[in-house]
């Protein structure tokens, strides 16, 4: 009798330790801009999105305890890389999410590879992350500059906007954006009539806008970013360029920028995004929940990307019962992505996530039915056409 009781106790204890082993601690870091130009786009909203993903995944019920830490990289690569190092070395962070600003994302990707952890980027645009500088430890979720150029450049031509003029920020990023978009416009049968370079950062764009207007191009492409794009759009609105029949195409602009500009100024602008809150029932339902937690502000595509990527990461953890980077990464690339925001897709071998992209036009104030009702859908770019083909990126992982 005594023996069996002892055995029973032993059995329970054994079962308990098994249960305790199944309990897993996962720590994820959301690293983004919390004070600068990308704070609206990513910032606290990305942390909210990550938290929602953990809740929706019901991680706690599945024996996975998820901790979320966050920090501000101030858009400086050295700050970003030192935070990433510290997170991996000291704080036991298993994966880093978000990271807008290309230079910081590339630096974090480098550190992640060195420490053999996982980095899933949502906020940055650098197509090099899954191109020449791709890494077996990096996944790029939401968008990249190639996809934006492809959406705006390629799909726009099909919509009839077949002559282009570029206003380009005079530095490496602006040149690359103009070059990529030009290639895609010409490939789709369009023509580039000319371009003008403005100093970076610029404040007075009137002479460039007048040149663009005089060129008679149907589309004026804005190959710049951040404050430069905002200023160009504001001044274009003062010149009445979109009312004159020309279309303004932003190559790197987000819904948060449109919100800041207001429909009066931004109307008629054409842009490409990976996500819009008002796409379908499931995006609307999720975005409503998100907005409640985020002071009424709707999610950007970067927020949506953080949510979807955390969800996919946790799925891989659950399936492999491991948080070893190579194991989890292999699983993430094996199982197809499926979430309420981006639908079905896949993680390619170079780390690029494939999903539909959308070409939008900003509504006129009279067309908008209320707050955040900003876009009308011009075209859907199917997943297989939306991103740079696997063999063109120059990624060494692609054999």
């Amino acid at each position, binding site marked *: 009798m005594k023996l069996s009781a002892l055995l029973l106790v032993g059995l329970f204890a054994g079962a308990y330790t098994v249960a305790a082993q199944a309990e897993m601690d996962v720590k994820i870091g959301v690293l983004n801009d*919390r*004070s600068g130009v990308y*704070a609206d786009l990513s*910032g*606290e909203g990305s942390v909210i999105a990550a938290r929602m993903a953990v809740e929706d995944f019901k991680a706690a019920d599945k024996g996975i305890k998820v901790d979320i*830490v*966050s*920090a*501000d990289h101030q858009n*400086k*690569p*050295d*700050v970003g*890389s*030192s*935070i990433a*190092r*510290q997170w991996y*070395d*000291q704080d036991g962070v298993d994966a880093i999410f978000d990271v807008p600003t*290309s*230079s910081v994302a*590339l*630096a974090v990707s*480098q550190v992640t590879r060195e420490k053999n952890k996982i980095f899933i980027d949502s906020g940055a645009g*650098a197509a*090099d992350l899954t191109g020449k*500088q791709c890494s077996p430890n990096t996944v790029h979720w939401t968008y990249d500059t190639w996809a934006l150029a492809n959406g705006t450049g390629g799909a726009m031509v099909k919509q009839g906007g077949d002559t282009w003029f570029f206003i380009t920020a*005079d*530095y*490496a*990023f602006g040149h690359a954006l103009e070059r990529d978009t030009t290639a895609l416009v010409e490939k789709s049968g369009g023509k580039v009539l000319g371009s003008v370079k403005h100093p*970076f950062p610029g404040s007075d764009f009137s002479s460039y806008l007048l040149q663009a207007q005089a060129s008679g191009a149907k589309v004026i492409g804005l190959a710049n970013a951040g404050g430069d794009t905002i200023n160009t759009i504001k001044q274009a609105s003062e010149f009445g360029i979109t009312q004159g029949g020309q279309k303004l195409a932003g190559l790197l602009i987000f819904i948060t920028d449109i919100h800041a500009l207001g429909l009066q100024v931004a109307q008629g602008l054409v842009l490409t995004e990976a996500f819009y809150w008002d796409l379908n029932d499931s995006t609307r339902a999720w975005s409503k929940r998100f907005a409640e937690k985020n002071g009424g502000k709707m999610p950007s595509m970067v927020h949506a990307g953080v949510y979807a990527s955390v969800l996919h990461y946790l799925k891989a953890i659950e399936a492999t019962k491991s948080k070893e980077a190579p194991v989890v990464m292999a699983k993430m690339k094996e199982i197809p992505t499926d979430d309420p925001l981006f639908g079905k897709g896949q993680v390619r071998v170079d780390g690029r996530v494939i999903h539909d992209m959308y070409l939008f036009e900003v509504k006129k104030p009279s067309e908008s039915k209320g707050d955040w009702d900003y876009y009308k859908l011009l075209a859907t770019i199917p997943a297989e056409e939306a991103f740079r083909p696997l063999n063109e990126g120059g990624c060494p992982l692609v054999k």
Partner: protein
Amino acid sequence: MKGYTRTFVILALLLAIGPYILYPIFLMKVLCFALFACAFNLLLGYGGLLSFGHAAYFGMASYVCAHAAKIWGWPPELCLLLGTSAAGLLGLVFGALAIRRQGIYFAMITLALAQMIYFFALQATFTGGEDGIQSVPRGNLFGVINLASDLTLYYVVAAIFLAGFLAIFRMIHSPFGQVLKAIRDNEPRMVSLGYRTSQYKLLVFVLSAVLAGLAGATKVVVFQLASLTDVHWMMSGEVILIVLVGGMGTILGPVVGAFIIVAMENYLAPLGAWVTVIQGLVFVVCVMLFRQGIVGLFERSLARLKKSPR
């Protein structure tokens, strides 16, 4: 002098045990900024010259060092040397132009020249534009010491810092340093005594640029990247902040200031935008309450304690 020996021994001891208490990479960042601030303090605190463009030397050295290490595959000691000499050369040209004017004009000329370097870094192809030069290899020091380990690298950085720190100490306490302080306090008088003050000013400017360059090049080896942040005017601002908070014209002030400012950036990072607000508050408090900075305040109260009869 005796008191200083004790300070050095304590400093060396702290440096030796530091990585066992705090995160080595954090400490290396502190040391790089401390050296940068010491170099700046040499110019401002002892030469009385407020340069608003020291990021140019720091950043140029980091770009040159990163390029040499990554593209040419040079060993780290040669990269450090090349980066430092590039900064020195730049300092010689910019210094020769800037010291012709004084006060606010001097500051504006250095700022303008530094902005030219910023735009050069933004446009030149070898700097990689806004992505900077990334994934610079750490390499092997003298071909034998592998710097991949953070701890090994820490001691190398600590040695570089200590060498720079001692060099500055030696300069300040040499006849050259005495002349420098005299020029700072009353330049016309030094001219009337027959000193060619502009030569002294140029020399201290170049020395300061060289040491700032050494700090910038060292930072590349630690973080494996050189970026626009290093040449941005905010970097020039940050070094002024460090020196003023720590204590201008004190030998230890920049070191203490660097520790405080970098620690704030590092440990308060989760607070997001509040970091800059807190830094601003600390700066205002420092300027309002103790102009000599933390170390200056400490030294003064120590002197008062010694004087007061028991």
